[in-house]
């Protein structure tokens, strides 16, 4: 006979069953935290504008977007969407996720054919064109209301080969140079470097005399991809031409790579090969970098965490190279509506409502976000000349008013097409520079190897009819 156990099997089953039910009930009863509560609008913040939707809306709208680098933007945005939902009778939910996880999440939802109705990312989403709605109507309507969309945004949301607006691009963010005045003054550049040659000369001098390096990444991440393109364009090189033919293997690209080798040897350390999205901000705030290519987010961070560094940080536009002075956009907002979206009408109306309030977006992002229609934020120039967020001097950001003159899209001089999107998602360009800088191969070989990879990608997408060229 078995001994009488303290707990019979039945007791265990009953207890664990009840416990599971209890836990489930508790978790169902919990209210999710409502983000954005307590967002306090400053006295001078723009008033929200509301336009009645052209069609009667109902149902729900789910939005997937990045967690903005400037947190006050998300506080404003969540409140903004809630109010719009109340005004239109649409139940809106917003999910902010880390920027690095957005492309994978979008890919997963498109593959599953379900998920959010509206998705946003900070780089062109051309690779998702076959699975998203054409947003020509939204862009056209915005053009009708606010004038012509900036070319940088149009080329980052429109595929000329298929004639489809795979995304709606209502805004973007410039990518200027950030430099430390107290480091550049002693080497004869109190206003910072204005050309790539000055960057090499001054940066090397700072490295030699002050032991502080430059921060231009050559790693497998997004900032390094943008920095590499800025250098190439300024040297007259590019991945594709305006007709979407691969032109990477050129003397100009080799010259750009050769320049990067010299810049690395004179002014940088192996740190740039382990660069990540936070390295710019960390290094600048810690006073460990003399120059970085970044938006103003690192500066805004240091205004709060290290005001001395913020006061010492100044900006320069894209550096002049042998051919021109161009930088990539730091952020290019792309909003897509997937084919599986349950409420595309609400998504399109929301995009137009959001566009009408880009002035609020610019303000609550602390002048990080710029509009795709220049007239939409009439106060932008005044704010940049007299920063409402405490810059010293107050006109420190004034140079950004002309940012469209020295900023261009991924894919320049062509569009941000599917092939450019895949190349941008891979470490091909950063590695092209890094392999030569590390001495693994010479610049010519590095460019040739990168070109072979790029051509294979272009050929694949050309065969599918999604990009032009090849003739």
């Amino acid at each position: 006979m078995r001994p009488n156990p303290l707990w019979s099997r039945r007791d265990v089953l009953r207890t664990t069953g009840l416990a599971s039910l209890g836990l489930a009930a508790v978790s169902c009863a919990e209210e999710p935290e409502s983000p954005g509560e307590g967002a306090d609008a400053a006295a001078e913040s723009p008033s929200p504008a509301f336009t009645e939707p052209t069609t009667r809306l109902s149902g729900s709208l789910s939005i997937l977007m990045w967690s903005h680098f400037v947190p006050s933007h998300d506080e404003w945005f969540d409140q903004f969407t809630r109010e719009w939902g109340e005004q239109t009778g649409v139940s809106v939910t917003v999910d902010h996720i880390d920027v690095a996880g957005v492309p994978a999440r979008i890919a997963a939802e498109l593959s599953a054919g379900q998920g959010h109705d509206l998705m946003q990312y900070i780089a062109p989403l051309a690779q998702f064109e076959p699975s998203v709605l054409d947003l020509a109507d939204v862009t056209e309507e915005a053009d009708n209301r606010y004038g012509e969309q900036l070319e940088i945004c149009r080329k980052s949301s429109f595929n000329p080969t298929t004639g489809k607006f795979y995304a709606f691009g209502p805004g973007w963010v410039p990518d200027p140079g950030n430099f430390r005045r107290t480091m550049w003054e002693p080497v004869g550049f109190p206003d910072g470097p204005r050309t790539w040659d000055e960057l090499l000369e001054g940066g090397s001098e700072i490295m030699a005399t002050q032991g502080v390096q430059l921060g231009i990444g050559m790693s497998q991440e997004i900032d390094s991809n943008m920095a590499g393109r800025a250098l190439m364009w300024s040297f007259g090189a590019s991945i594709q031409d305006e007709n979407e033919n691969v032109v990477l293997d050129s003397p100009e690209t080799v010259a750009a790579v050769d320049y990067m080798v010299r810049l690395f040897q004179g002014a940088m350390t192996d740190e740039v090969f382990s660069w990540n999205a936070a390295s710019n901000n960390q290094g600048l705030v810690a006073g460990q970098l003399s120059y970085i290519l970044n938006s103003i987010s690192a500066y805004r961070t240091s205004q709060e965490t290290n005001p001395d560094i913020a006061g010492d940080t100044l900006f320069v536009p894209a550096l002049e190279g042998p051919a021109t002075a161009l930088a990539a956009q730091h952020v290019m907002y792309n909003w897509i509506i997937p084919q599986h979206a349950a409420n595309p009408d609400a998504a399109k109306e929301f995009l137009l409502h959001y566009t009408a309030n880009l002035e609020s977006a610019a303000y609550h992002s602390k002048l990080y976000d710029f509009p795709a229609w220049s007239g939409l934020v009439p106060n932008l120039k005044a704010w940049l000349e007299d920063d409402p967020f405490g810059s010293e001097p107050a006109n420190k950001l004034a140079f950004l008013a002309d940012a469209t003159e020295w900023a261009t899209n991924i894919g320049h001089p062509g569009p941000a097409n599917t092939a450019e999107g895949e190349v941008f998602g891979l470490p091909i360009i950063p590695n092209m520079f890094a392999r030569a800088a590390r001495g693994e191969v010479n610049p010519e070989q590095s460019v040739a190897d990168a070109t072979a990879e790029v051509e294979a990608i272009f050929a694949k997408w050309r065969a599918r009819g999604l990009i032009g060229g090849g003739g």
Partner: protein
Amino acid sequence: MTQAPTATRPSAAPATGRRRRLGDREGPLAWLFLLPAVVYVVALVGVPFVLAIGFAFSDVSAGDPSYDWAGLDAYRRAFDDPVFWQALRNTLVFTGVSMVLIVLFGKVLANILIADFRGKWLVRFLVLLPWTTPVALSTVSWLWLLDSIFSPIDWILRQVGLLEGNMYWLGRPTLATASVIAVHVWRLVPLAAVIMMAGLIAIPRDIDEAARVDGAGFWRRMFEVTIPLTMPLIAVAALFGAIFTFTDMAVVYVLTRGGPTNSTQVLASWAFVRGIEGGDVAQGAAIALFLFPLLLAAAVLILRAVRRMQVM
């Protein structure tokens, strides 16, 4: 004569009685308890595996999930890419070196953990922490420890006068490779130690005492008694270490994202970069499937080792 099954059941059986019978019947209950595991394996291993095979012979991309047969195109693209071969080589090197170090340190740790000393349970708890911490979370901690500017390891080395400047752990291929292997070893040694501890505890004391009486020293007992007797468990620990290293992409992805210049790229991370970040799902699937043959061999070896243990 065989009794009819109904004869053993209570005759008056209201709803509660039926529930009792179900709870008391071991066969259905066993299946009921197994069901979550079966569903889990089928849904999260079986289905993705079949999908991966399908995708590898298609032109599926992140933006276009529609299925078109593309034969071996994805494999051709993968083979033409030198990074694939580098990733394959790195995967084998990382796995091999990690496996040796995991077994070595696991054995040493197991010997320490079976010794009698004050605070043994606390030490055992602390030693197991790396294994119980989610890999992505612990790797983020390592990312900070190995940071190019703020590395506390560098700071300590500078304080004791062994270093000037920085090591740039993740910015130099050799150091980045060593860092990835070190993190794998750090997180998997506890698992190996616990497995081997079970083997060490199971060795009858009289065998060890007999060896001592015969004059065998520590090393001789180690190599001629302890290791042979625990060999099946050592093999299991080694194979688990190999599988977890071979299939992991989190450590590489968080620490180096495959850099510098793809010097730490492994098949799992390259499949993700190509398939998801690059959007070429077909090629990503083709690369990922290269993990399968070795995993299959490892699984067979593990099952054989376990069987041998049962026979012993």
